[in-house]
């Protein structure tokens, strides 16, 4: 009997099934790796566990108690804490204030007892082996420290089980080691962890047991010592998608996009030459500037210095300007930046083309429907009537509609900012296949993503960014997950990392 038992969990959002009959058992005092690709259902499962959303069926047992309808407050009280990927600390408060947020210690007069709070925070840090001044401002901390602060805060609130959502994404190799040291110590003290990560070496270093989900279904579970990274990867992606190399070398055309010493928000002095028909991947950790460069190349963000040339013409100005030069950008964060929720599928497909061809104001529905049907066939969009709401589609099909939105503008250069975010495995594979198809037709594709195995499958070159600079450009044959990670975390320039790279 584990500390946590989740049985027969199923959840559907409207018509989209997120989880089907999923099990998860976590023992007391273990680090349990929860594995699966984006969209496999990990977040949904964790959101159910923490009471953010309700489950349709199934039961949750934690610490011997049943929780048929958990709420956020209930699960917090039970001792479950969620340390999110994007760190949830209040930047404008001091470290100790964050720890005591909503649980402030008060003096007899009802005023804040700063002295005692600082003292207790200091004791907590000593116990955990965290080196942090309780009085420093959170805004001055590094990401890794903020993460430790969040873990400390959860432990201070007597959390028995912590959910760590990709805690190492923004950390350097040394910081990861430090974090793991603390986790081992806490494990020995009897705390349990659900550890969500994509990085195989880490999982094999830190986790005791694992559970793999795929497409919202339970696939496998067991001891880490009884399995291999290859076995887990196969479980995660499914046999049919693994090791399938779509990449075909193609002859490339003339230079179509040229960045010359471009400096803008979050990056500086970036120079690149991109050839017609080329597929280039941008990658790097959150905040590395890759997304900002992409937005600058589409006129969303202004640039302060340098030149952007498209087919020899220097470009500057707002989005419509860049669209006229046949550039298109599929922005990241689909819900916020792409979905027009009150419009149907057809209108969602056409709005970018409308903006481009606004001299001809009248709409020919017949003409648009033919275009839409062509795109639907090309992109394998699974949709009913084009008059249905965009929200009736699954994430993957929505994303394809937005790809269609931009293909509809007859762009030559396609910028894709994290296009497979929140898309299921099948649709993801299709999107990568489509990228190759677009390139074969002579389109130039730039894709910003953290999915290095996918980059390897499609891209001609991979540009790794670190803190707003180009850290390294890999040719297709040189791309591998480890080296890309070394450059994106800048581990290559730290002692441990250099040794690692040999």
């Amino acid at each position: 009997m584990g500390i946590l038992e989740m049985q027969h969990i199923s959840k559907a959002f409207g018509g989209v099934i997120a989880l089907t009959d999923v099990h998860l058992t976590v023992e007391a005092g273990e680090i349990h790796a929860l594995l699966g690709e984006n969209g496999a259902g990990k977040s949904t499962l964790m959101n159910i566990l923490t009471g953010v959303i309700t489950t349709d069926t199934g039961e949750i047992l934690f610490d011997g108690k049943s929780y048929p309808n958990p709420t956020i407050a209930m699960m917090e009280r039970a001792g479950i804490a969620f340390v999110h990927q994007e760190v949830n600390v209040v930047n404008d408060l001091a470290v100790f204030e964050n720890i005591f947020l909503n649980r402030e210690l008060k003096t007899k007069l009802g005023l804040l007892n700063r002295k005692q709070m600082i003292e207790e925070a200091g004791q907590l840090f000593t116990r955990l082996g965290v080196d942090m001044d309780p009085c420093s401002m959170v805004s001055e901390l590094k990401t890794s420290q903020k993460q430790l602060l969040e873990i400390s805060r959860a432990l201070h609130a007597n959390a028995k089980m912590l959910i760590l959502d990709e805690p190492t994404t923004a950390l350097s190799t040394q910081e990861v080691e430090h974090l793991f040291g603390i986790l081992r110590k806490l494990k020995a003290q009897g705390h349990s962890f659900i550890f969500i990560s994509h990085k195989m070496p880490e999982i094999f270093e830190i986790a005791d047991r694992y559970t793999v989900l795929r497409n919202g279904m339970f696939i496998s579970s067991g001891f880490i010592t009884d399995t291999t990274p290859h076995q887990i990867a196969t479980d995660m992606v499914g046999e049919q998608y693994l090791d399938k190399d779509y990449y075909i070398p193609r002859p490339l055309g003339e230079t179509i996009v040229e960045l010359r010493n471009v400096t803008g928000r979050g990056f500086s002095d970036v120079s690149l030459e991109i050839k017609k028909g080329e597929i280039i991947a941008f990658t790097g950790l959150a905040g590395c500037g890759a997304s900002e460069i992409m937005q600058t190349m589409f006129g969303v963000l202004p640039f302060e210095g340098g030149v952007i040339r498209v087919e020899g013409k220097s470009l500057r100005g707002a989005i419509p300007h860049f669209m006229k030069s046949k550039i298109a950008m599929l922005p990241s964060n689909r819900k916020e930046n792409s979905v027009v929720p009150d419009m149907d599928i057809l209108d969602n497909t056409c709005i970018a083309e409308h903006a481009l061809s606004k001299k001809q104001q009248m709409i020919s529905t017949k003409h648009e429907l033919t275009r839409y049907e062509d795109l639907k066939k090309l992109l394998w969009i699974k949709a009913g009537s084009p008059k249905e709401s965009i929200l009736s589609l699954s994430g993957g099909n929505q994303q394809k509609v937005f790809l269609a939105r931009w293909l509809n503008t007859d762009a030559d250069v396609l910028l894709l900012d994290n296009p497979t975010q929140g898309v299921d495995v099948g649709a993801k594979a299709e999107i990568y296949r489509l990228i190759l198809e677009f390139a074969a037709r002579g389109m130039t594709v730039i894709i910003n993503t953290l999915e290095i195995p996918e980059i390897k499958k499609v891209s001609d070159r991979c540009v790794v960014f670190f803190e707003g600079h180009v850290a390294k450009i890999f040719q297709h044959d040189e791309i591998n997950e480890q080296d890309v990670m070394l450059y994106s975390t800048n581990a290559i320039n730290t002692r441990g990392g250099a040794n690692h790279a040999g």
Partner: protein
Amino acid sequence: MRANKGVFAGIGSLLSKAWKRYSFIFVFAIVLLVYAFTIEANGNTFKWGHITAILASQNTVIVGTMALGMALVIITGQIDLSVGSALVLCSGVSIMAFNLTNSVIITLLAAVAAGALCGLINGVLAGYAKMPPFIVTLGTMLIYRSLMLSVVREIDPAITGSSSSQFALLSENSSYDFLRMKFGTGSLPGVSIPYITFVFVAVMLIILLVSRRTKYGKSVYAVGSNEKAAFLAGINVQGVKVSVFVITGILVGIAAFVQACKIGNVTPASSGKSYEMYAIAAVVLGGIGMSGGKGNLLGVFFGALSYTTINFIIVSIPALTTDIQDTFQGLVLIVVILVQTVGPVLKERFAEARKRRLTRKVARKELADSKA
């Protein structure tokens, strides 16, 4: 029995679909029915004349025309509180233009130009200067009216057409007869539908066409539904936001011209007061969501008709004094919004509860089966 149920279910789903899409027509039908009942209850017979009275009312034609613009503004997620004051400004300008030139065309153009300018000021401040439209138009609401209040006192009565703090069409002008008697108060012989109603219908059809069949119309909805996505799709978001105010201004100009022709005068101190609220009411009754991004402009037409009819009902109940009228108007508005916002939530709750009951039933059945 079962087949019968199927037919009823079919009709039911058709009705519920129609209700969802054209709820404004149902609202109008219900309101009209209630009106007919009150008339009959008063001992009179409900006649065609009652309907033409609705069609000819200021609340239909003038408020309705302004409400079409208001709807566009609301669809983009903004609001225009200045339309009532702008109406007075445009009527005043238009009447002065008539008194000076005796030209029908210039009278119309003056009203439209003044309206467009009022809208442009609102739009530039709200769209480009990025000030909250609520505050901007609250400011211009005060400005536009008070400007006319002072102008009417300063200007020669020969131009304003009246010496009693109002603007009036000079009946000595040769075009007066056409403008006032033929167009403003006349109606199509045979069906006795007023000419000014046709102006409203024509404007409605144009706006409906623009909203549905042009790329501009689609961009208005896109901006209101998800401004960021619209921007990233290359839509000139600020331009759209400004343009809806200008269109509203032009419509206010047309409404002002019609008002001048119908009434013959305008009093800055009292005319068009609260019309912005009436216009918003017509928009809401027309089923256009206040959060922006959705709604059918055809609804505004019926919304205006419903609003007028509701007024007529209240007036026709002898027990109600005019003082209490606004209370009933307010209540009707609140009820309609309640249905709009609470309705879908309740429906979702019911659906969820039903689903939960079903799964529980299935689970119980499985349990029983396994025991057996």
